[in-house]
């Protein structure tokens, strides 16, 4: 055996005997060879130097025809005209591994005539490409990307994600200005306060005031613009919100300080203006930072649906656009492919995985005349079926449409801080007004009364209140993330703390979701490698379970080539090796080969026979996840009702529910029924968490108050879920509850701290005892208290 050699393009290592040899170069496949020559011709071969030893994906995939990208419908949806009049599209490039890949894609596109700009973001693999449409077409650009071994698909950049990024950027800009100005104002304020105690001439004071005023102006009108905007919308909707308070408070203080500066007496409060704006802006930014959008979720779902299917036309198999398939067309589904249309089998037979739709973990065997449902996947079936519905009316597109409406109708529990700030703002504003009236009427001059009223607003200004929720949730979010629990939005923490009903899916949530070998009965010695090679060639879940079990035991994954090999649908596998007949499968297969065996078990059984003699029996069952029973018991002791929903039959459902200790369970639930059930719970006034992992759960996940997805579940479920448990364990489900409850307690504490501070200082301010120094210090102290209190979440967790 000679040593393996790395392919000159993709750097994957292979035995030289199977590689394409060309001069000093070796290639693993034609695809790599093609790309290598293309790069050399285009003068881009410095790519290999830049990429170093990074291994790439060999470009062997076949893609659908790129002329799709030139269709008017596609252009209308994805292609924009930019301000220079060029066409522009946003793409996601697949297969980018390193910065050299980014370099290669950009340079290759730059070399094309008519491409004006190609800018690829390495962090998220998104590209913006601008081109002159009369010189090249989008399909040429896509072809180029594919030719150099990558793939690209479009995404709609006008979606909310792009919108959110823009909003975030706007906040960065405003915060940069606010922080810069506030820091400068602070050091000027040090001089002011020192002068307040040790004496300062009015001239110097005016100079400092003017400097502060200049710095405070952009903070109020640029950074603080957000609050003016918020206050304006609030007034239009006839509500007084936090923005109203911040906007009026800071503008009044600003105007008053300008008057003081010009009149050259008294104390100016420019430092308070910029501090308030900066603090509240940071609080707001923290909220904006953690928001997810529904629209992007849908985009991911539709991306998973291929746009073409194979149909039989004039006794030839041709590719056809999904939307062009008519009722009555004959659709071809090969092994491992997804069924995209509903229909009736007219040729062939095999097993289908329907767990996407039903949650049933066992594959279902279908033959001539049976109906196939869109959204299911063929495991070993190679069939032709006649479409009974077009794509618009198929089960799959119904599911997508339902999901769309469910995501838009997601319930939102009003958050505590928002509710509170409404009352708070109106109370403070009326207090300030009353203070002014009282002072003015009790024979003080206008200036004094106005100053006292303003000090009420300044001291009450909700810096601490604005930080109370965001800081606590941020600490909660990072605590969750470090434990593999991703809360997609900060608000979910608060919502989850108010939950009273927990709905669990069975397969993949309570149980592992795949059959595992539970017990092995060996009747006579045999070569395990043969059995391993036999089961490895099938992707039936039972076979996979056994393959995994043997691999765990022997750690030897050499395969043996059989002389003959045949998969028998719904039965098992039949093979011959050196004149020996090898059978592996279920009881039906044994009976067909007239092997009779007496073995009774509740579990799924796999028989392995050599020369018509059973040598081993494997018992398989879907195992419960670790600690399932204890965790369910602990959660229900906290007053959370637990309900199990499953698409499986009554027998299996009952067995699992009993084992875990769940009293309420529903079986044979379709995705629609699951989500209806959750809507019903909502109508009863319950707040529901749904935990699931499969495509059959996504409707329910999206209509629950909080949908929790298992990280190993389908991509779509992970996308739809509000919380993702990365390590799939029920322990982290419990942790998620704990984190959300701890965070919620802290939010409440923070709000009490800031309200207590206000209750203490507002009467002082109303009676005119507050000097500027006290106002500034107390404002910072209360904010620090709130931030420090939030950090306690970590301490509490470390103690446990």
């Amino acid at each position, binding site marked *: 055996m000679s040593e393996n050699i790395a392919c000159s393009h993709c750097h994957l290592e292979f035995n030289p005997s199977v590689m394409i040899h060309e001069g000093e170069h070796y290639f693993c496949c034609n695809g790599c060879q093609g790309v290598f020559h293309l790069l050399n011709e285009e003068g881009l071969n410095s790519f290999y130097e830049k990429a170093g030893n990074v291994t790439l994906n060999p470009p062997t995939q076949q893609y659908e025809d790129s002329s799709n990208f030139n269709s008017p419908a596609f252009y209308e949806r994805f292609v924009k005209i930019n301000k220079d*009049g*060029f066409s522009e599209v946003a793409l996601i490039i697949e297969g980018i591994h390193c*910065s050299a890949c980014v370099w290669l894609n950009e340079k290759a596109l730059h070399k094309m005539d*008519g491409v004006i700009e190609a800018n690829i973001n*390495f962090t998220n693999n998104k590209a913006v490409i601008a081109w002159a449409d009369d010189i090249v077409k989008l399909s040429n650009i896509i072809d180029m990307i594919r030719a150099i071994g990558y793939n690209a698909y479009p995404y709609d950049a006008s979606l909310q994600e792009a919108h959110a990024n823009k909003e975030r*950027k706007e906040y960065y800009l405003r915060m940069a*200005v606010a922080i810069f100005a506030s820091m400068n104002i602070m050091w*000027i304020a040090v001089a002011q306060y020192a002068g307040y105690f040790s004496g300062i001439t009015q001239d110097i004071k005016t100079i400092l005031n003017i400097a502060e005023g200049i710095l405070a102006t952009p903070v109020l009108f640029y950074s603080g613009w957000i609050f003016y905007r918020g206050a304006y919308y609030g007034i239009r909707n006839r509500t007084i919100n936090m923005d109203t308070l911040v906007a009026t408070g800071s503008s009044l203080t600003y105007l008053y300080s300008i008057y003081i500066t010009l009149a050259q007496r008294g104390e100016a409060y420019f430092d308070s203006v910029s501090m308030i704006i900066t603090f509240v802006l940071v609080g707001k930014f923290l909220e904006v930072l953690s928001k997810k959008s529904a629209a992007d979720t849908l985009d991911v779902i539709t991306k998973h649906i291929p746009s073409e299917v194979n149909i039989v036309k004039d006794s030839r198999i041709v590719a056809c656009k999904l939307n062009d398939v008519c009722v009555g067309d004959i659709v071809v589904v090969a092994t491992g492919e997804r069924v995209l249309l509903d229909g009736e089998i007219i040729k062939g037979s095999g097993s289908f995985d329907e767990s996407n739709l039903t949650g049933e973990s066992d594959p279902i065997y279908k033959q001539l005349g049976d109906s196939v449902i869109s959204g299911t996947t063929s495991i070993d079936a190679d069939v032709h079926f006649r479409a009974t519905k077009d794509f618009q009316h198929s089960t799959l597109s119904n599911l997508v449409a339902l999901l769309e409406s469910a995501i838009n109708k997601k319930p939102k529990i009003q958050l505590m801080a928002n509710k509170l700030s409404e009352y708070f703002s109106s109370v403070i504003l009326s207090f300030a007004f009353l203070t002014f009236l009282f002072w003015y009427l009790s024979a003080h001059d206008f200036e004094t009364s106005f100053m006292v009223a303003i000090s009420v607003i300044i001291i009450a200004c909700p810096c601490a209140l604005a930080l109370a929720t965001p800081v606590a949730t941020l600490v909660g979010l990072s605590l969750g993330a470090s434990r593999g629990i991703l809360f997609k939005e900060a608000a979910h923490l608060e919502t989850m703390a108010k939950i009273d009903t927990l709905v669990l899916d069975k397969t993949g949530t309570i149980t592992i979701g795949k059959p595992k070998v539970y017990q092995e009965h060996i009747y006579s010695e045999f070569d395990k490698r043969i059995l391993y090679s036999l089961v490895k060639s099938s992707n039936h879940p039972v076979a996979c379970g056994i393959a995994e079990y043997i691999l765990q035991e022997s750690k030897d994954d050499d395969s043996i080539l059989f002389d003959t090999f045949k998969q028998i649908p719904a039965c098992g596998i039949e093979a011959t090796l050196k004149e020996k007949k090898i059978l592996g499968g279920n009881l039906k297969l044994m009976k067909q080969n007239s092997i009779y065996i007496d073995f009774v078990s509740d579990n799924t059984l796999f028989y392995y026979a050599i020369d018509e003699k059973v040598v081993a029996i494997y018992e398989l069952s879907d195992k419960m996840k670790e600690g399932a029973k204890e965790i369910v018991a602990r959660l229900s002791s906290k007053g959370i009702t637990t309900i199990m929903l499953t698409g499986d039959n009554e027998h299996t459902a009952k067995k699992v529910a009993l084992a875990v200790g769940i009293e309420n369970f529903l079986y044979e639930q379709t995705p629609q029924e699951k989500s209806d059930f959750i809507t019903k719970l909502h109508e009863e006034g319950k707040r529901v968490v749904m935990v699931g992992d499969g495509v059959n759960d996504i409707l329910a996940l999206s209509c629950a108050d909080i949908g929790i997805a298992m990280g190993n579940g389908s991509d779509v479920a992970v996308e739809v879920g509000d919380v993702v448990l990365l390590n799939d364990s029920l322990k982290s489900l419990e942790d998620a509850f704990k984190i959300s409850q701890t965070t919620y307690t802290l939010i409440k504490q923070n709000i009490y701290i800031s309200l207590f501070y206000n209750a203490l200082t507002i009467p002082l301010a109303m009676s005119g005892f507050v000097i500027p120094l006290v106002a500034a210090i107390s404002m910072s102290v209360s904010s620090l208290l709130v931030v420090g209190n939030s950090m306690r979440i970590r301490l509490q967790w470390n103690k446990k």
Partner: protein
Amino acid sequence: MDNWVIAMMLGASIFLGAVALFAFLWAIKNGQFDDEEKFLNAAKFDGQDELNDAINQERKKKELKRNYKPE
């Protein structure tokens, strides 16, 4: 005299700070911080070829802009 010195120093330092701030704002707006990885890797790929490529790209854009008339 004292007052004048303080005013001037305040003015000068705020002005210098503001220049830096505007440079920073320009960089944010320009998207220079959008992609932290590329930003850091750019140093690796800096060379004559890159400059030539950038100039070519700009020239191409200018030429096309002159001739290009979107309907």
